[in-house]
Structure formats: structure tokens, C-alpha cells
């Protein structure tokens, strides 16, 4: 019996909160790894980097015993290209890294997007640019949702705020990858990756996933050859291919938006924050509500597609908006664009901490008071 499996068999609790029946105590990275196993991944391709190394360690222990593949590659670049090969051969596969390693994978992700291969990628974000720090941050929002690699592709990006969501969104990402033949990205900050919480594993939804009859499994029975490729030299052909890709992204945008709205309905000030910043802002909302201020939260869970539909009910009257991120202001651009597209010119302020510094709920409450004084005209 492996240690990982042992952990899962026991029903445990945190120091402050006893676990309910069926719950387990895991850290964010481990929850992702276990959820990936429960989603039926066939192969995982690794390269160590802090703060995501708990994922390869967990899977190195578990996968071989399940008859699945664990390969530690010689680099992040090699790992993502092994994903390309295995995904192209029709298998459900995964890689993970942290910010500098995700930068290295971008070329491969672009090829995977171009060749329309399903795979699951995890970025446990650390502070940057450059080698930066191993402490958690959200400085890769742009890289995650605006393409990252070359060529203008998009991919579903999910941002958990709890260890429970780490598991749930892993299962969702792996499903969406197969459903849309696309890479998917789970994007969390390093702090959440290292955070212990109780969670309950759901069941992976296999329903309605298309067959992988395009895979390079050898042309047995004389079937027509299959080709996995992203090279389309003739401009009209590539334009047609890209139009199909973007039609797919439009379908994804329509169907796969996810968000959490918290006390935003009657709020005069709505905080927009994702991931850990969203979770902290939620506590900040409670503080401010207790102090008598009508403040709410809109927490995007899908970063691509950006949850425009979540904003629709909130643009029925003028409100004030505060975007809180653990970066210098990235998602705030999408919030402004969304509000503008929905016909609103409400004031949008930004507050960010950088380099691995985590804001506190009190800090966020102070910022709301400073930017939008109660009864003030700012």
C-alpha cells in the first residue's frame, strides 16, 4: 500500500475542522494528482520545479502500480512534447509545472493547440518575472488566457480557490480536453498548491466524449493513415483551419463559463478576484458586510472563457468595481472590457500585491474604503 493511497483510505480532519464521512485531507497539489488518477489519465510527464513538485512525487508513487506511465523528462520542453506524442496516440495525458517551466512549455502547447490534441496542464504559479520566487502569485494570468505561446490559440483555463476545487476542476479540465480536443490548463497560485484542506472526490464524467479515431495507433486493418500535425503551409488552408479553431473557442466561450457570485446582488461595490485572491476577498466581503457596507464578490473560475455571463445580472444598475489580483493588474483589463461590452462605464479600480505577497481580508477592506469611501463621490 502506498502512502498516497493510505492517506486516501483514512478519514481525517484538520486541526480545526473534523472531516465528514467520505472526506480526505490533502494538499492542493496532491488533490490535483489524485483527481487526475480518478479521471483515468494514462500518462504523466514530469519535470521537477517548486512549488508543484508534490504532483510528480504523488504520481511517481501511484501511477506505475496502476499500470500507467510516469516519465520524468529531461526538461519541461521534452515533457510537453511527450504529452504531444502520447495525446496524438490517443491517450489521456498530463503534465504540470510552475511559471518558468510553463514558459518553456509554451511552444509545445501551441503545437498541441494547432494539432488539436486533448491534454491537461497544471500551472502552480510562482512569482516572476525570471526565476522570481517560489512563493505563490497570479502573475501568469496573461500568459494563461491570452495564448502564452505563438499563433493566437486559446484554451480553457480554470482557477480553483480551494483544495476541493483543485480536485473538481482537474476532473473538469480533463473532461473538457477530450470533449473539445484541446489542451486545458488548471491555473492556481503556489500557496493553494501547498494548502491542506478536507475534500471529497467526485466522479469523472465520461459521458458524451467523442472517440479518438484520429489517433496514430498504426493503420491496422488497412485504414487510412492518420496524421497529427500543425503545419498547414497554404494560407487559405491555414485560414480555414484557424477559423475552425476559433469557432471551437467560440463554442467553448458560450458553454464553459464558470464563476462564483457572493453577495453581489445588492452590492454597491463588487470585488472581482480569482483563485486565492478571490477566496481572501470573500472573507473581506464578510468583514465589510459586518461593518454595514454593501460589498459583494464576483470570482471568475473559468479565466478562459472569461465569465461574461456572470457579469450580466450585475450590470442592471451603476456599481463600483474593485479588481484584486496577486499581480500588477492583468485580469482587470478583461473586467473593464467586459463591463464596457455590457454597456457600463462604472468606475473600475485595481489593487494588487506582487512577488508572492498575499493580501489580507483587512487590507482589501481598507482598499475598498479608500477607493470608494462610504457615501463619498470618488
Amino acid at each position, binding site marked *: 500500500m502506498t502512502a498516497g493511497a493510505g492517506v486516501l483510505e483514512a478519514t481525517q480532519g484538520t486541526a480545526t475542522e473534523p472531516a465528514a464521512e467520505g472526506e480526505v485531507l490533502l494538499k492542493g497539489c496532491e488533490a490535483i494528482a489524485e483527481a487526475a488518477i480518478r479521471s483515468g489519465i494514462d500518462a504523466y510527464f514530469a519535470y521537477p520545479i517548486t512549488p508543484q513538485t508534490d504532483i510528480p512525487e504523488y504520481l511517481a508513487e501511484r501511477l506505475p502500480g496502476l499500470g500507467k506511465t510516469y516519465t520524468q523528462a529531461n526538461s519541461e520542453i*521534452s515533457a510537453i*512534447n511527450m504529452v504531444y*506524442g*502520447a495525446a496524438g*496516440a490517443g491517450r489521456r495525458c498530463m503534465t504540470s509545472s510552475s511559471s518558468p517551466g510553463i514558459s518553456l512549455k509554451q511552444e509545445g502547447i501551441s*503545437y498541441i493547440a494547432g494539432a488539436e490534441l486533448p491534454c491537461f496542464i497544471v500551472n502552480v504559479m510562482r512569482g516572476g518575472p525570471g526565476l522570481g520566487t517560489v512563493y505563490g502569485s497570479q502573475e501568469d494570468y496573461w500568459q494563461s488566457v491570452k495564448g502564452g505561446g505563438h499563433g493566437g490559440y486559446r484554451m480553457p483555463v480554470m482557477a480553483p480557490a480551494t483544495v476541493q476545487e483543485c480536485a473538481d476542476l482537474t476532473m473538469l479540465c480533463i473532461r473538457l480536453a477530450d470533449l473539445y480536443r484541446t489542451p486545458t490548463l488548471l491555473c492556481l497560485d503556489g500557496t493553494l498548491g501547498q494548502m491542506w484542506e478536507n475534500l471529497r472526490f467526485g466522479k469523472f464524467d465520461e459521458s458524451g466524449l467523442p472517440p479518438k479515431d484520429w489517433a496514430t*495507433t*498504426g493503420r*491496422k486493418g488497412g485504414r487510412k493513415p492518420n496524421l497529427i*500535425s500543425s503545419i498547414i503551409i497554404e494560407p487559405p488552408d491555414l485560414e480555414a483551419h484557424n477559423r475552425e479553431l476559433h469557432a471551437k473557442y467560440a463554442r467553448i466561450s458560450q458553454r464553459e463559463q464558470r464563476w462564483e457570485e457572493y453577495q453581489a446582488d445588492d452590492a454597491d461595490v463588487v470585488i472581482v478576484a480569482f483563485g486565492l485572491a478571490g477566496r481572501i476577498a470573500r472573507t473581506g466581503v464578510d468583514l465589510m458586510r459586518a461593518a454595514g457596507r454593501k460589498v459583494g464578490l464576483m470570482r471568475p473560475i473559468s479565466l478562459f472563457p472569461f465569465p461574461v455571463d456572470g457579469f450580466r445580472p450585475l450590470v442592471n444598475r451603476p456599481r463600483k468595481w474593485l479588481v484584486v489580483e496577486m499581480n500588477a493588474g492583468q485580469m482587470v483589463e478583461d473586467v473593464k472590457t467586459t463591463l464596457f461590452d455590457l454597456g457600463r462605464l462604472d468606475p473600475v479600480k485595481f489593487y494588487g500585491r506582487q512577488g508572492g505577497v498575499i493580501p489580507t481580508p483587512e487590507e482589501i477592506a481598507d482598499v475598498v474604503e479608500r477607493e470608494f469611501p462610504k457615501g463619498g463621490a470618488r
Partner: protein
Amino acid sequence: MTGTVTEGAVLPRVEFDAQICKGCGVCIEACPEDIIEYAGTFNHRGVRPTQLVPDGLVRCSACGNCAVVCPDSAVTVDNLRKHLHYGKNALRIGDMHYCPGCDEGTVHELLAEVIDELGIKEVAVGVASVGCTVFAYRYIDIDWQQAAHGRATSVAWGIECQHPELRVFTVQGDGDLAGIGIGETFHAAARGDPTVIIFLNNAIYGMTGGQLAPTSLMGQVTSTSLAGRNVKDHGYPIVMTEALALQEGCSFAVRTSVHDAPSIRKTKKYIRQAFLNQAKNKSLSVVEVVSACPSGWRLDPVDAHKYLVEHLFPVYKPGVIKEPPGGMPR
């Protein structure tokens, strides 16, 4: 390359496909009877295709050299006396984009023949890398994956770790294998991946128009080493296959060429042995084919093959570099 044909006449049957011919002239050079010439008219490519001289058939010994050396598989020879057939294999499809006289076409023909003759076309999966080989999937009628520049062996491992029954091979140039992908290449050897690497070393970046490559020779003039390669600016050419052979996970390593009919026949044997070794030893097999790049070298195709023998062989010596345990596969 060989097969039985119906006995009909004493004279051989020789056909030159004037539409496919790129006029490189290597068949003229390879003919021992001196009975091949350029036609007086131009084909749709704007070149004069080759043909037999008048009464050439009478002097033809049906050795098949012209068919064997044609990089575009445009020549067919039926030796009706010995029941031998030389020409394009059924798995070799499509007109190739390669320049006239490029050795890559010859290697594709050999790969198609070996895959066909070993009966592995239903389990063979090729990985085409970036460089001139990027379109390799257009020319052999099997499953293919096209890999990012330098990453072919990683992609190959991704396939074969999931499907051990598949016979995975890569076709890689020197920029791909020895430049940008050198890390991937060495780790494939270190892991002992059951991949067959066909390494086309022409000492230049061909597809981008002839720039200095990791394997370019000392003194070699390229579009980015106009005064010739020198140590101060460019360092030394890298010798890959011997280095790969040092790794425990590489069980078979040879260096060969396809510059004339005998070397082509030998290369076919090596490629066959590499696939046999793949099945038997489940570890890395490397076939380096020292190749001519007439366009990149700014040489006539026939002169390019002479340059290859005179200048590349002293640095990249042909021969068996590492025999698998138990001797060469049969």
C-alpha cells in the same frame, strides 16, 4: 526494390517518368553502360528530364542502378531475365518537395521498402521533424506525427510508451538532432527508447536556405559563415553518432550514405537491421545517413556527391559504430 515479374522478353523494361523527373542527373552518373541522357524538351517543372539514348535498351544490363539512385523514384527497371524489379515501392506516395538530387528522397524510398518488406506498415508510426523532413508524412503511406523542431525523440517516446506494439521511427536533420534537439536526442539514448532514428546529416540547414549547422565542416562556406567555418566564430563540428553509441541505451549505431547505388543498397540493409534491432533489443537504433544538400552547398547534384565523399567522409566516417549484443541483426 526487388520482386518477381512475369517473364516476357529478353530485353529489360525501363521507364523514365518524365513528369516526376527533376533533372538532377544522378541516374546518368550511376549508369555503367552510359546509356542515359537529358531529353531535348522540357517538362512541366522546367527541366530536361532524363531518358535512354536511342537503342539504349539493347545495351542496358538491367542492373537497376538508375532506379535505385533516383531520389524521386521516377525510374522503373524490370530485369526480366533475372526476375528482378527496381522502382517505387507501393508505400512511397506523392511527389516530393525536395530539391533536385536531394538524398532525402532516396532515404524515404528505402524506408518505404523496409517497412513494406518487414510487413510492419500497420504498426509503423513515423515522427517527422522540423527541417526539410517536416513533410515526410506526405511520402510514406502510414501514420505520422509531425514534431516541433528538435523534439522528435520526445514525441516518439510519448507514442511508444503508450503503445509498445508500435514501431516508431524519427526522420531528423542535423540542425534538429544535433542542434536544438541535442538534449532530447541524448536522453532518448539514455532512456533506451525503442526508437529508430534516421539521422540525415547534410552539414547545413537546408530548409532555411543553407545556414551554418552544428555539423558543418571546418572551412565550410554557408550563408552565415561566408568566410568558411572557423573555430573562433563557430567552434567545431559535432560528431553525434559515436557519442550516442557511448550511451548504454543505444544498442545499434551506424553511419552510412546514399551517394551511389552500392551505398544505397548498404543503407537499406542498415535501416532494415535498425528495425530488426528495435524489435529484438527494445532500445535505441541510430542510422546516420551522411547526405548531400546540393542547394545548400551550391553544388550540382553529381558534384555534391563527390564533395560528400571527399570532404564529409573524413569527418563523418561511414561504417558500423556499435553492434548490438549478439551481433548484427538478420
